[in-house]
Structures are given as structure tokens and as C-alpha cells.
């Protein structure tokens, strides 16, 4: 076992570090889910894209660097350590794009990825419905066959980024006769198309981070279907694997937050041992996540390991931020950086499949316990 970085990895890390030091905006950008923040974040994404740093793991032809996964992790560590802005394009970059690279056609990749990389098109994900949250197979929104494409109808909810995004992707029931997991199709659609109504929902933090989407016979061409019609469940599960796994929640973010927490502890007063222990545990958790991710580079995780990872980072995120608030005490209330982070962390155990669902998956699929309910 070793933790050595080869010369190429070191050189890449140094290049990223230098570029970020020279380019990261001073001060925080407005929230990504507000109009001002939308513009500022899109401008930042273009800057990243121009430097070839938007998605370093992607193939060269789509603006990536085709670097190995280790380099991508190092990029994330540097990105978060530098305090760089949240990624407005994350739903597209880290959820839709890997799905297209695996299940999409070359024409879809050529058409969709370049504007995604430059944030000229920002994507929302449209999985959940009022009756289908963690139980995605209960989806009711329909796609009806029409000449040259499909007509989408129904309602999506908790659609992240939909209030500011340009396009969305989600699952639609295209064969009402088929059983739950069958008859679903993965479709991309325009959020400004006729028949689409977007109603922003204010989150706990006050921002319209998600929205309801109402669809009334919205036309999408066949070219916007990902994979085969009726095969949407399989396509969506590979996307969900990315969502639950590490791409969206890179260890770099937790490491940076843990370092800030330790610094906060060091500079604070009233440093009791109980709180100190929680600070240390949060730091240990971030290190464990980092090392676990490094280890996974050499031992590809099983199909259900993403559930264990999601459980770990989402609980760690809450613990880390709750500890920071307790270290700050009454002053925490006015510390926007930590309180925003805390409110964001509270969503972690809920989205991408609730933690109860994932504990069930770990218990049944990883540990081999008997099924609790028929799924």
C-alpha cells in the first residue's frame, strides 16, 4: 500500500492549484438558484471551460482532459480547497453526461455536451413526482407516441435547478400496461417548450433550489430519447448510481469543510472537550471518505456500494455542519457560510433516495439479509 502521487499527478495538481489561485472569484457568488447568481455562475463555468477544467475526466473531444479518476479526485480537492463556486452545471455534468456517454448516441453527445460544458445550457433533473420520490418505479407521468416523437404529460416535483435551468431529463411511463419497472423511458425535454410550466419551490434556505414541472402534451422528438423506449429504468439506475456515488459529493468538499471546521475550532473560545471530539470526528470522517475513495480506484466497488457511500457522506455532511454551528454558538445564526452549508446538508439524507431506502439496500443487497418488502 502507498499514497504516492506520480509525477504526472503532481504536475496536474500543481497546474490546477495555480490556475485556481489566479482565477477563483474573491468573495462568494450569489446563490446559484437566484437570477443574479445564475448569471455569475454561468460566467464562472465558461471560464473553467475555456481553461479546459470544466470536466477533466471527460474525453478530449467534449472539452475534457481525459485524465484518470485519481486526477479528477485531485482536481476536486484543489477546487474545494480554493473555495471555488458551486457548480451550476452539476446535474448535467455529473448526472446526464455520464448517462449520455454510456447510453446516448454519438449525435446526442455531439449536440448536448458542448453547450453543457460552457453552461450555455444548464440542465435540471426531473426524477421525482408527487407519488414517486424514493420509490421511482411509481412514476405516473406519461409519454404518448406521436409522429416522430412523444407527447409528455404529467407532473414532476423536487426538480433540482429547474427554476433557472434550460432543459431537463427524467423518466416517463411510455407503456401503461407494463409493470412498474418496465415501460419507462428516459427523455430529455426543453423547459421553455410549449406546454411546460415551471413553478419554483422555495427551499428551507429560501432559494428556489427546486421546482415543480407541469407538462401538458409537450412534444419531444425521438432524438431526445436516451437509450431504447421502455428501457428507461436501466438507464436511470446508471444515472442514480452517479448521484448516490461520489461524483456529486466529492471528498474534496468534505475535506475543505473539515479543514475550515478545525480552523474555526482553533480560533474560537469555550473549547470544551466534548465539542473538540466532535470536530475531530468530523475531520476523521472526511479523511475516511477520502481514503475510501482512493481505495475504490483500485478495487471497483460492487453495484450497491454507492448506497453505503451515500449514507456515509450525507450523514457526515450533517454532523460536520451541526458541529460548526455548535462551535460558533449564538454567533452561528449570522454566519451565512456555515448556516447555508448546514441547510444544504440537511437535504442530503433525503434526496437521491432517502437514507432509509439506502439502509435497506445495504442490508439486503450487500449483507444478504432477507427482503423486508416486495420491490
Amino acid at each position: 500500500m502507498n499514497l504516492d502521487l506520480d509525477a504526472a499527478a503532481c504536475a496536474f495538481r500543481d497546474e490546477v492549484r495555480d490556475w485556481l489561485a489566479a482565477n477563483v472569484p474573491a468573495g462568494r457568488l450569489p446563490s446559484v438558484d437566484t437570477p443574479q447568481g445564475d448569471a455569475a455562475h454561468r460566467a464562472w463555468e465558461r471560464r473553467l471551460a475555456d481553461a479546459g477544467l470544466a470536466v477533466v475526466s471527460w474525453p478530449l473531444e467534449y472539452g475534457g482532459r481525459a485524465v484518470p479518476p485519481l486526477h479528477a479526485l485531485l482536481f476536486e480537492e484543489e477546487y474545494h480547497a480554493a473555495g471555488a463556486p458551486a457548480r451550476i452545471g452539476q446535474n448535467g455534468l455529473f448526472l446526464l453526461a455520464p448517462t449520455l456517454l454510456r447510453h446516448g448516441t454519438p449525435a446526442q453527445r455531439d449536440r448536448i455536451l458542448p453547450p453543457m460544458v460552457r453552461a450555455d445550457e444548464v440542465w435540471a433533473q426531473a426524477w421525482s413526482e408527487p407519488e414517486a420520490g424514493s420509490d421511482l418505479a411509481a412514476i405516473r407521468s406519461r409519454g404518448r407516441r406521436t409522429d416522430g416523437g412523444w407527447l409528455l404529460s404529467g407532473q414532476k416535483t423536487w426538480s433540482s435547478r429547474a427554476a433557472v435551468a434550460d432543459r431537463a431529463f427524467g423518466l416517463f411511463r411510455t407503456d401503461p400496461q407494463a409493470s412498474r419497472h418496465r415501460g419507462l423511458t428516459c427523455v430529455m425535454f426543453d423547459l421553455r417548450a410549449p406546454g411546460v410550466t415551471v413553478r419554483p419551490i422555495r427551499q428551507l434556505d429560501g432559494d428556489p433550489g427546486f421546482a415543480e414541472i407541469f407538462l401538458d402534451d409537450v412534444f419531444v422528438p425521438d432524438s431526445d430519447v436516451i437509450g431504447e423506449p421502455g428501457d428507461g429504468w436501466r438507464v436511470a439506475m446508471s444515472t442514480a448510481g452517479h448521484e448516490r456515488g461520489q461524483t456529486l459529493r466529492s471528498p474534496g468538499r468534505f475535506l475543505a469543510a473539515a479543514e475550515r471546521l478545525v480552523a474555526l475550532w482553533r480560533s474560537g473560545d469555550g473549547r470544551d472537550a466534548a465539542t473538540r471530539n466532535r470536530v475531530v470526528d468530523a475531520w476523521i470522517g472526511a479523511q475516511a471518505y477520502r481514503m475510501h475513495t482512493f481505495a475504490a480506484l483500485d478495487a471497483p466497488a460492487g453495484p450497491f456500494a454507492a448506497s453505503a457511500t451515500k449514507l456515509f457522506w450525507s450523514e457526515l455532511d450533517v454532523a460536520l455542519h451541526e458541529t460548526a454551528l455548535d462551535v460558533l454558538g449564538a454567533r452561528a445564526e449570522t454566519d451565512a457560510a456555515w448556516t447555508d452549508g448546514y441547510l444544504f446538508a440537511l437535504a442530503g439524507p433525503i434526496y437521491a433516495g432517502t437514507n432509509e431506502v439506502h439502509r435497506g439496500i445495504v442490508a439486503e443487497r450487500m449483507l444478504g439479509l432477507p427482503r423486508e418488502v416486495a420491490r
Partner: protein
Amino acid sequence: MRLVPTAEQDRFAAVLHDLLSAADVPAVAERWAQGDAAPGRAVWSRLADAGVAGLAVPERWGGTDAGAADLVIAAEELGHHAVPGPVAETLAAVPALLLALGDDRLCDKWLPELAAGRVVAALAAPPWLPYATDAHAADLVLLAGDDAVRLARTGAAHASMDYTRRLFEVSPGGVLATGPDAAAAVARALDLGVLAAAAQLLGAGCALLEAAVAHARTRVQFGRPIGRFQAVQHKLAEVAVALEFARPLLHAAAVTVGSADTAARDVSAAKVACGSAAHQAARAALQVHGAIGYTREHGLGRWLTKVRVLTLTWGTAAQHRARVMAELTR
């Protein structure tokens, strides 16, 4: 960078697992608890033949000088089987201490015997190790402090809540080394011992989870296996996650323990994480087993109590957390 075991290390673990599975460790532990160390010594001798005892000993003294990564793999397997005796002492801390003292006469005398499995060593190192564990069954008993390393005279014996352990008070005997070099040697030896203890904890935690899962699959209550109840599933899932994320910290600490300036920090983090995961596994395993797990005859208690004493010795969680913070804010 590589943080997962090599194929060779996986084979080494499998060999040790088979060896210990065949050795009837529960019976050996029972004899050990009754004061009969012979079967335990025989197992240790067979482990030595498999290369375990010489992992921390250089080749010139008959060991393999294999490094900390192999050490944690072996210690995890010994923890998995709840092998009795001063494991972390004999496997890791005492060889490392003798080596770090740099006294060839001491090394010539003891290291070949340790590597061959003919010598079992106990160690007291207050405050982390206030007593010498199982000194009655040891051929070499040391007392390590900040100012000196000494041979130890053993005094009164105390029972442990781990019924296989006996704890001996010690008083200073002949001085082996003094001064700053001795203090540095003790620090390095303790880090290796802590690492081995953390690995034992991880192995014991995994064994407890396996036992709980096996029981939950077959034990029927209210007309169905208890493993179908969400409350049981979620408890065991949380244990699995805790163990899964403790292991990479242990392996990372095995990488840095020898050289990096983060060694103390990383070893302490590994001890906290492995101890916490193992403790969680112990609580969950007893809860899932119910009353049968609380009986001496079932045997689950060997792991339950060993986990608890290993989290309390080689530095408590509070001591290691304090050390992590001290290192982070140095």
C-alpha cells in the same frame, strides 16, 4: 497510489483465516482463560510458521521486515478470530521497540526468538497500557515510559472483563535504555501497537457483523426471520458502513506510520474509527442475538469484551481525539 491489499496480501489473510478456523480458537481461549497457555502458545507457533511473528522483524534477525501494511492484515485476521494473549505487543510493539532502541545485543537476544514464535512479549506503557497484559504467559515483559525502557517485574494480577485476559501490575526492573532516543523508540513502538490494536478491532467488528447477519437470517420471530425487520436491517447496515469506511483509514495509517510527519495523527484517527465501528458492531450483534448472545456458552462474548478492552487500551478514544486535534493545530 494504492490503498487496497495486493493479491498476495489477500492470500496471506486467507491462509491465516484457514489456519485459525482449523485451530479451534474458542477452545484455545477457554484454556488460556483457565491459565493454561500451552494451546495458545502452540497456535502462536503455527502463526509464526506462517510468517506472522516476524513481520516487524528485519531479515537479519529471522523476520521478514514486511512493513505495516502486512502487519495490519495479519492483526485484522487475529482480531477476526479473537485470538487471546498480548497480540499487538508480541506482533508489533515489542519488536518495534527493541529494533528502535538500536542495541544490537538486545536485538540479537530477543528478535530471532520473537520472529520464530518462541517468545511471547508483554508490555506496560502507562498511561495507555497501565498493566502488562497476560504477563504470566510471556517470556519477556517490558515497561516503557517517557524516560526509559526497562525490564518489568510483575506484581499483583487483576482479572479483566475480557475473561481471557489477565492484567499484571509492574514495577521497574533493569534499565535497557534511557534518554530522548528511548522516548522516540517508545513513541514509534506504541504507534505500531496502536495500529495493530486498531486492526484487531476492525477484524473483531467484521466478525461480529458476520455473526449478527447469520443469526438475523435464520432466527425466526413473529413468523419471519428477524433480518426482515427494518429496525434490524438498518442497525446492521449502519455497522457495515462504519466498518467499510474505517478500513481505508487503517490502511492509510499503515502507509504513513513508518515515515510521514502525519504518522501520529493518522494512527490515532484509525484507532478512533476502528474502535468506534467495532463498538457499534458489538452493540448491534448483542442486540440482534438477544439473550443467547449474552451467555458464556454461545461465545459471542469473547468478541464483545475484547472489543471493549481494546477500545479502552492502547489509548482511549478521547486520548486519540485529543492527539489528532493537537497534531492538526500544531
